[in-house]
């Protein structure tokens, strides 16, 4: 099976950037990064996070992602990137 075949990475980019727009209002940059990371971890299903990293690692190199999202995704990769796709049963 392949769960990482989102036909339109722009959907994921859009959803991710919108989260960044809220946390960007924090005066403290570290808090903004923490806010974004925690939100992705708590609310994004693993295949969506996988799509985010696939877009970031792929040929597009995360094209369209805001700076805050790119930074958060890279800095917090260990906790945000899910393990390989789950077993079928």
């Amino acid at each position, binding site marked *: 099976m392949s769960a990482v075949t989102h036909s339109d990475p722009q959907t994921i980019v859009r959803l991710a950037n*919108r989260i960044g727009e809220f946390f960007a209002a924090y005066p403290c940059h570290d808090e903004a990064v923490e806010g974004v990371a925690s939100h992705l971890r708590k*609310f994004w299903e693993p295949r969506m996070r996988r799509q985010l990293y696939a877009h970031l690692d792929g040929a597009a190199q995360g094209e369209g992602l805001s700076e805050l999202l790119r930074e958060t995704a890279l800095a917090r990769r260990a906790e945000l990137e899910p393990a390989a796709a789950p077993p079928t049963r």
Partner: protein
Amino acid sequence: MNAPAQPIHFFRARPLPARHAECDHGTPAVVSDEGVTLTIDGFEVSVPKGTSLMRAAIDAGIQVPKLCATDMLDPFGSCRLCLVEIEGRRGTPASCTTPAEAGLVVRTQSPKLQQLRRGVMELYLSDHPLDCLTCAANGDCELQDMAGVVGLRNVRYGVGDQVVAGRSGRHHLDSQKDESNPYFTYDASKCIVCNRCVRACEEVQGSFALTISGRGFESRVSPGMSEPFMQSECVSCGACVQACPTATLVEKSVIEAGQPEFSVVTTCAYCGVGCSFKAEMKGTQVVRMVPWKDGKANEGHSCIKGRFAWGYATHRDRITKPMIREKITDPWREVSWEEALAHAAGEFRRIQATHGRDSVGGITSSRCTNEETYLVQKLIRAAFGTNNVDTCARVCHSPTGYGLGQTFGTSAGTQTFKSVEQADVVMVIGANPSEGHPVFASRLKKRIRQGAKLIVIDPRRIELVDSPHVHADFHLQLKPGSNVAVITALAHVVVTEGLVDAAYVAERCDDASYQQWRAFVAKPENSPEALEAVSGVPAATVRGAARLYATGGKAGGNSAIYYGLGVTEHAQGSTMVIGIANLAMACGMVGREGVGVNPLRGQNNVQGSCDMGSFPHELPGYRHISDTTVRAQFEAAWGVTLNPEPGLRIPNMLDAALDGSFRGLYVQGEDPAQSDPNTQHVAAALSAMECVVVQDLFLNETAKYAHVFLPGSSFLEKDGTFTNAERRISRVRQVMPPLAGKADWEVTQALANALGYPMAYQHPEQIMAEIAALTPSFAGVSYEKIERLGSVQWPCNEGTDEAGTATMHIERFVRGKGRFFPTQYVASEEKVTRRFPLILTTGRVLSQYNVGAQTRRTENSRWHEEDRLEIHPHDAEERGVKHGDWVGIASRAGETVLRADVTERVQPGVVYTTFHFPESGANVITTDSSDWATNCPEYKVTAVQVSKVSQLSEWQQGYARFSRNQEGLLAQAQGQVQVQQGAQATEAVK
């Protein structure tokens, strides 16, 4: 010939055939710290000061004859039946209008009083028909009762047109009956002009649609300007019918069926107000629904939907046999429950084996009970083994869950509805209670008529802005999509003008977050002046509203916020909820009666479905799935290992379906194909799935894409509980057997068993016991307690009152210290351009409910038979559009055609429609723009163009063909059985 055997179904818990006789105390209860003691008929009676003599007597068990008095209404003193004698006073005052005073000695019976009362009754009956035996009110007529009580034996003046001593008096017996309203009749010949209907319309409902026209003998009840009911401003709430002591105003269902024999108290299945009703029954037939006075959400009031629109439950369109098909282009095939469930289970297991455990999921219903919702999420998490569970709250109040959770610590309204009686200033944001939450609207209007101030924040001129005896002190008529700009500007005024309740903030709130927020909102770019261009609201109006809200209108005043989907259904829905919570905390307006932050929930059990763990990231009680301790409790109780990762939300499921990674869906009592945005996207996603199982009353829009149809049951057919917007948990009680043989919870249980995950509940009470055992905020909830107390409000456990918690966050916030967040305004992606120069926003009407599946199958459609597009005269004229013209509405997502309603309710640049009819295609136009935090769709902001057209849109033509085809496939299944039955009958004859 033998008739085909019909299965016989029994009630699991047959209600006792006892009628919930409610005592009418004559006049409303009075609350006072001071008591008075007096003597009535020789008994010593103590009552709160200000109580009427009538109520004092009735409370003491002494009945006083009455006709114009009833405890839902202020005393009127017109019928002259409730006269009493008071020692040391002259005359015979009316007991309803005379307050009890200390030391009074009152007599309610004497020969003189009896004679006076008999004389009054003679006059009443001299102009009243004597058709009592065939009258619809026979058995429920106060006039008849009073004739009996006063011992009326003769009417000296003759009755009606009788000739006495060669003379016949004037009378109204030949008055024309008004049968225009589909639900009740008005028979003026039976009217005794007690004014109860007129007063109910004013005092209870607040519509002022009725009056008494004429004077003296000519006096008659008149809707509007002597119009038929249907042409008047009457909203058909039925308060007048309930108040009428005779058969003048009576339900057509009572005329048809006769008086009910018993009643069962249950909870309405329409909006989030959650009104309590007596289902008045004859066997298993509902005769009428009467709002229950002891119901705390509604205190004896109702709207047109709850009282009258229940006929859908037995509508001919109900599907009562399970059906399956291989492809959605195949005809449906009626099968046994066993076959349907085995087929569904087999398909889900097959898909999971091929595409992974997370390739399936489900949607719980905000129209079903707590127990049913809990069971569906349990099935998905435990039997499917995935967290891909979501609920329709995703598309309405999910931002409330996020926003209030972040700021206060839990996702719930803070008050009871009754709390509005203590409010001095009420701010209504993005809600139209007159249409969406009518029974709360009546309470609110009553408070406004008593002098409370009103602030409305809404792009439309909703009814509350200017209606009889209710006017908004401030209407912030903002541009759709600019909510966050407005709430931040209000906060700017509060902070920069020194209106913050500093003591409250210091004691109750997190200081670091407060300082951060304070600095943010105080920035010049967040001033009302700076944001005026974005919001379109004059800065002075914003400043005035902010001052009024912050001060509560007077020293120590109370300000309360009520908000609706006009807050949540935006790209910044969660930010706006947070902004509201920030403002309320800064002004010290959370944590006591009369204040608070109150989401007006859309569907009846939105609160409950969220509480029950319907969101993919949360277990029941709003506990994150990643919490190892909580997960361990559920794993132990359910005997499975749970996935610690959050699952897919509805829009993510749809996206994943188009990717091919999501292929099976179990939908209970929801209709995403009509209710969710960007219909064509939803349809494509559903079409891409291999197994869609729909459990519903009707072949809804989603069922047209389904492979398995499991018949659902209405709220009249099952036991359970609903939780309303006050967090009030009330019982839903079964009054008729499920038409298809299984209540919804039984279907879910059977599906779990078919999947190999055993469930063996005998009654929903056991499901609630499991919920209580696993959820701290529900620990004290039980059917026994609800039975005893009428209802309970969560949190309900060892640390709360027995009935739970009426007002939240009293001494501290659930999260400890209330937390502030900066709320940066970000313009919606749905921007107006030359191609799409108008903003479409959506809403609902009073008579229809949500996707309309229920109300469209009732006479309610007489009030609203199609969705129309509201457009401002200026925009209409520019496009050559006249009232009633067909107009095309095109957005980036699609195009549909509706008829135009040219009106100034909308501002120039804004158009508006409702989504109650599938063929309207309102959601063909709405886009996939959604809330940043929760993906709640932005239904309220879509950039569109409107133009005059002469035919339906391409989508509508395609929809009509598709729909006709699907109905044909259904008819084939049902026809096929009829043919089989016919064949059997032929066999039997042979």
